[in-house]
């Protein structure tokens, strides 16, 4: 019988942002503004305590590879998957990919040999120009953004079908947008039969929002535990064949940093390490 591998894809919510180790922070700021050494400590904490490892344990998987990266776009996540995993032989594993889809307005391009993601808040001039054009149309501009997302979703669906991987899709954004996606793209890979955003419901409740640094808005470790339980319950309900006996500990890796071909953005986090999550 093959060993089971859970691969998780997504943005900051999948990277585990919000799981700060407050005792190891010299100041209460977003991790990106911390001194480099402290940022690395915090991000390692995110990777350990986020939902992917918790879900892996509940599902009874042997290993988790978390590709979640803060600020990343759907297209950037797919590019990253292709860069790192398209040539990887995982035939000895029973693979499940859980993809927590990011806000659809983000885009990506290669810059300096690296995948770079662009968010509306970046005020990048190309992005602003693009938004200007889609907002000039007579249609709902969300649809253009969603069609870009659907194209990238179809790519991962193809890849999974090609390799025999299982795939589950669920949104990190509000259910209204997800309803639009589901109306434009029918897929057997949606986590829920009816449009539902587990993360959004949890965020809306406000009970598990990280507030260190103030207003961060991601989940706390307890919040990610509840989110992982919610995911597990939905998988058990809608895709029971993907569930095994829960495990006490799993092997995990975070592999979310983009390939840096020219060493222009040295990232210590790029070194993949394997650890145990109990």
């Amino acid at each position, binding site marked *: 019988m093959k060993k089971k591998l859970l691969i998780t894809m997504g943005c900051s919510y999948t990277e585990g942002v919000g799981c700060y180790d407050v005792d190891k922070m010299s100041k209460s700021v977003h991790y990106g503004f911390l001194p480099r050494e402290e940022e690395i400590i915090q991000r390692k904490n995110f990777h350990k305590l986020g939902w992917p490892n918790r879900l892996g344990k509940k599902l009874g998987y042997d290993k988790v590879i978390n590709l979640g990266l803060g600020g990343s776009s759907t297209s950037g996540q797919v*590019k990253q998957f*292709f860069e790192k995993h*398209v040539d990887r032989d995982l035939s000895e594993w029973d693979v499940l990919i859980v993809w927590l889809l990011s806000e659809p307005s983000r885009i990506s*391009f*290669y*810059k*300096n*040999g690296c995948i*770079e993601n662009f968010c509306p808040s970046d005020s*990048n*001039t*190309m992005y*602003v*120009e*693009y938004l200007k*054009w*889609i907002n000039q*149309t*007579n*249609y709902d501009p969300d*649809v*253009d*953004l969603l*069609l*870009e997302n659907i*194209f990238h979703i*179809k*790519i991962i669906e*193809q*890849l999974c*079908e*090609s390799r025999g991987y299982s795939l589950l899709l669920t949104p990190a954004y509000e259910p209204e947008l997800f309803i639009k996606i589901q109306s434009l793209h029918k897929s057997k890979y949606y986590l829920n039969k009816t449009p539902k955003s587990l993360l959004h419901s949890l965020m809306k409740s406000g009970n598990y929002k990280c507030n260190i640094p103030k207003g961060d808005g991601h989940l706390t470790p307890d919040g990610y535990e509840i989110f992982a339980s919610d995911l597990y319950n939905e998988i058990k309900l809608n895709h029971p064949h993907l569930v095994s006996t829960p495990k006490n500990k799993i092997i995990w890796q975070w592999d979310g940093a983009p390939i840096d*071909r020219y060493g222009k953005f040295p990232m210590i986090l790029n070194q993949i390490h394997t650890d145990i999550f109990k």
Partner: protein
Amino acid sequence: MKKKLLITMGCSHTEGYGCWDETTFSDEMLLKLKKHTPINPFFGSDNSNIKFHTNELISKNKNNFKTKGWPANLAKLMGTADILNLGKGASSNSGQTKEFFKRNLHKNPYAEYDVTLVWLMTEPFRISFYVNRKIENYMIDSHPIWKEYFKEIISHHSKDMFNGIPVEDPTLESIFYFNIMETVCIKNNWKFHAFPLTNVFSKYFRKHESSDNFHENCVMPLLDDNNLKLYSHVCGHLNEMGYQQVAKSMYSVIKS
């Protein structure tokens, strides 16, 4: 034995643009054409020819493009009766891939065929977005979006320039789309061959991508004095003789 199907992807060079039927031209246009060569083609060399380059003229020549471009010639060499030519003028590699998925061809509606997909990948600098629910492609200097892409996105520290445009970042984008199409072809058990439109980006492509399905030697004849007869003096693209040569070059690679 399964019937054969050839699917082709690319830009205007795959659409067959350049295979003009001069009997569709007006006397005035024919007169003006006499002054032009493939180096100094009629379309693009002065503003007056804009009125000649109309949808009506393109429409009258569509069948010529279809029957005399490289896809039709390659299909003959391969002994393939059925062709699906997805070539579209001015399209980008990303836009071509999006179009393929939009048509749901990735789901393999041709399971009863023995399919070969040949992609003449266009210059990598072009980009695409969905706008107004349509796939819009942006060529060099064609649109404010492309100008901002050039200014803001691609690295200008690169030593690898083509006509002042850095090649490496755009080539990495194209490799991504190549990998997508390769994945689809493997899944559908289709044969897949990709060729570069120019040698300029093929060496960067090869630097980052080792797949045997990418053939880095350019199949397009060089536009030099020896090959002028292969190019159109109307638009500067290859003509039907040129596309025959492209098909032969592709076939020699594919059959081996």
